[in-house]
């Protein structure tokens, strides 16, 4: 049992390192670029990978590798920012709603229901299109839809915690409702919510890439992985490397974030995982 726990901890540490390295790499990646990612060369359009252009060139002769390196921070950090914002908004609203209960809780949760009633991607696309596209508007659209999951989760956790003895004790000791929420309830809800957040990162990267693929994301000429896929789709058959490398970059990052989320889940919710493993057996 202990061995299993240590194994899980090791796994978490390894994935944390990988994620940490990835996040640092995204920031310093432009240093490794051998070409200007914005410099077009119309005499070298859609060139296959070569010694000069390791991942080939795109539809106006720009170095794909350099654009991937420059686009890394934009693609990954935009998703992280969205997860952070949705997390904060969702946890705040869900916790307050669950704690105060009554009519306010009913109203907030029905609003959450109504937001969640729409397919999330379609709703996000509609909002982004309405706002007029662009990176900032995409992030607003994703945040406007994404917070509801955290709100629902935070509320359910608060409902289960607020009747516990340590909360009653805090109340008896004269703490205000705000203090009780901040100092006792939310800290005890965090493990579950953080796991949810870590698992959301991969989805957010995909969603952001999806919006960019639909032309709603980053404006040209700035590189972003989803945008690069969108721009390359016309050359899918004649220059497949233009699609392959941005696609692989997205795949790798999403996989890393998902594995990190899983390992974090194993560490923070060991009971739940053990129970589900037993059920499987």
């Amino acid at each position, binding site marked *: 049992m202990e061995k299993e726990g240590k194994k899980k901890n090791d796994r978490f540490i390894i994935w944390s390192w990988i994620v940490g390295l990835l996040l640092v790499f995204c920031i310093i990646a432009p240093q490794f670029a051998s070409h200007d990612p*914005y*410099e*077009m060369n*119309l*005499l070298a*359009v*859609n060139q296959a990978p070569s010694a000069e252009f390791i991942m080939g060139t795109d*539809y*106006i*002769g720009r170095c794909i590798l350099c654009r991937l390196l420059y686009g890394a921070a934009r693609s990954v950090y935009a998703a992280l920012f969205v997860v952070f914002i949705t997390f904060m908004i969702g946890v705040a609203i869900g916790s307050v709603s669950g704690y105060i209960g009554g009519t306010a809780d009913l109203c907030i949760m029905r609003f959450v229901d109504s937001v969640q009633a729409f397919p999330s991607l379609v709703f996000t696309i509609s909002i982004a299109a309405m706002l007029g*596209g662009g990176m900032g508007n995409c992030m607003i659209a994703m945040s406007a839809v994404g917070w509801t999951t955290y709100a629902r989760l935070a509320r359910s956790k608060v409902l289960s915690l607020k009747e516990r003895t340590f909360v009653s004790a805090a109340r008896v000791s004269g703490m205000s409702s705000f203090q009780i929420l901040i100092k006792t309830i939310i800290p005890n809800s965090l493990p579950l919510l953080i796991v949810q957040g870590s698992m959301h990162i991969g989805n957010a990267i995909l969603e952001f890439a999806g919006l960019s693929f639909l*032309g709603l994301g980053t*404006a*040209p*000429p700035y590189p972003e992985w989803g945008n690069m896929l969108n*721009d390359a*789709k*016309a*050359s899918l*058959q*004649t220059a497949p490397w233009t699609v392959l490398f941005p696609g692989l970059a997205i795949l790798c990052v999403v996989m890393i974030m998902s594995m990190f989320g899983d390992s974090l889940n194993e560490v923070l919710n060991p009971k739940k995982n053990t129970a589900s493993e037993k059920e499987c057996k």
Partner: protein
Amino acid sequence: MRTGKTRKMAAGIVVAAGVLAGSSLGAVAEGVTLTYPVAAPNTQSGFTTDPAIDYAGNKSFAMGTAETLFVLDDDTKEVLPLLAASIEQIEDLVWTVTIRDGVTMSNGKELTADVCKKALEYIFTNNTRIGTMADVASMEANGQTLTIKTNHIVALMPRILSEPNVIIFDTEADDYSRGLIGTGPYILDSMDPEGNCELSKNDNYWQGTPAADKIITKANIGADAYTAALQTGELDWASVSDADLALFEDNPDYEVMYQNAGRAYYLYVNPNYTFTKDDALREALTYAVDREAILNGVYGGHGAVTRSIFPEWSEYYSGENLQPEYDQEKAKQILADAGYTDTDGDGILNAPDGENVKLNITCYDKNGFKTLSEVLQQLFRQIGIDSEIKVSDSVFDDLTAGEYNIGTYGYNTLTLGDCYNYLQPVFQTDASSNFTKFSNEQVDADLAEMSITSDTEKRAELAKDIQKYVYSTNERIYIMHIINNMVKRKEVVNVPALFGGDQTNMSVLWKITKE
């Protein structure tokens, strides 16, 4: 015993041969089916063949259910008779059209001047675009003679009647949008909700028996998917993107055909909005556009660079009046002379008033316009001008609203084989596509004269005169004239070399079949 076995074997062979022969005969009976795309017209109404709506009339012509009175020769753009035998301008405002004898519609009804009159009345009344062009006051039908009276002199009447949207159909049939009946070689059997149609041949077609037995038109395949559909055999012919032509050019299973087109890709440079109000900046931009690089890099060389409204092969081309050639140094010099300097050292020029120059480029995300805009963004950057790209689904509305510096645009400069349908809306004061609010008295006078002049030489002279005045303002930068392509499967035969593209003459459809 052996003989019995042999007999049984022989009988078996005969039966098997019979089955095979039967199946083979079945295949023959199925006949030739042609499958090609006929996209929904540019409308919110979904797929419709109702000629009252936008460009829906030409869908019937494309499918082979209806035809026009005249067609344009693909090569010379001359007006040729089709359902009509001839046309004559008997007075300034009066035209007589003689309808061909012996033509019947697919429901057996004889084609008379009265049938034509009712169809034309419907189109001229309900389709504003065509109605405005024709400006018909009244029509009279007498036997096979149709008399058309116009409100003003309409020199282009024969060309208007050869517009693929000006089809002749039976107005007494019930449903024009899904069951239009005309004189064409094929009869519409069914149309699904997406607009995919099945048609069978019209055995009583007036030009002869149609070569194919069945036609299937596809409206649910987007233009992006034409390449894949050609490769899988779902389509027999289609026009593909320039980037995909390489997949077919050396493939023995396909044939690629090209057609010079009058469609120009060009830029509107707005003299009424922010930085491009400055004449010097507009002039510099004209020198900064590297047409050769754009043609080869963005459009794979499938076109012809131009510094003129009209292609060189057209009679309206004027070699004496052209826009300047690409010269980046000259562009920089013009800006420097006009007081543009990089005062803050950020690589972007500051206007004489000190503000960083930033233009907006509005474009559609189709026909390579987004890529073209990205290339322009880099070319302008090379002379120190920053820009941002706005991809829009409604460029026409955006340009009409006037809040743009540069608009990328495509327009057929030789609609109906003539220059007037481009020059009038684009250069006449306050006309519909005059997005830069260009206004010149001489140009307006030339256009007014052109509208009432039938003489082709005089029209060419007027077109050349107009070109003397329109380039100097640098409000439009002409980049290239495109070359249309059509990829067909090798087994499809009797397709004329120029089949496909704008203003297609579909009167040849009845001859197309498969080997």
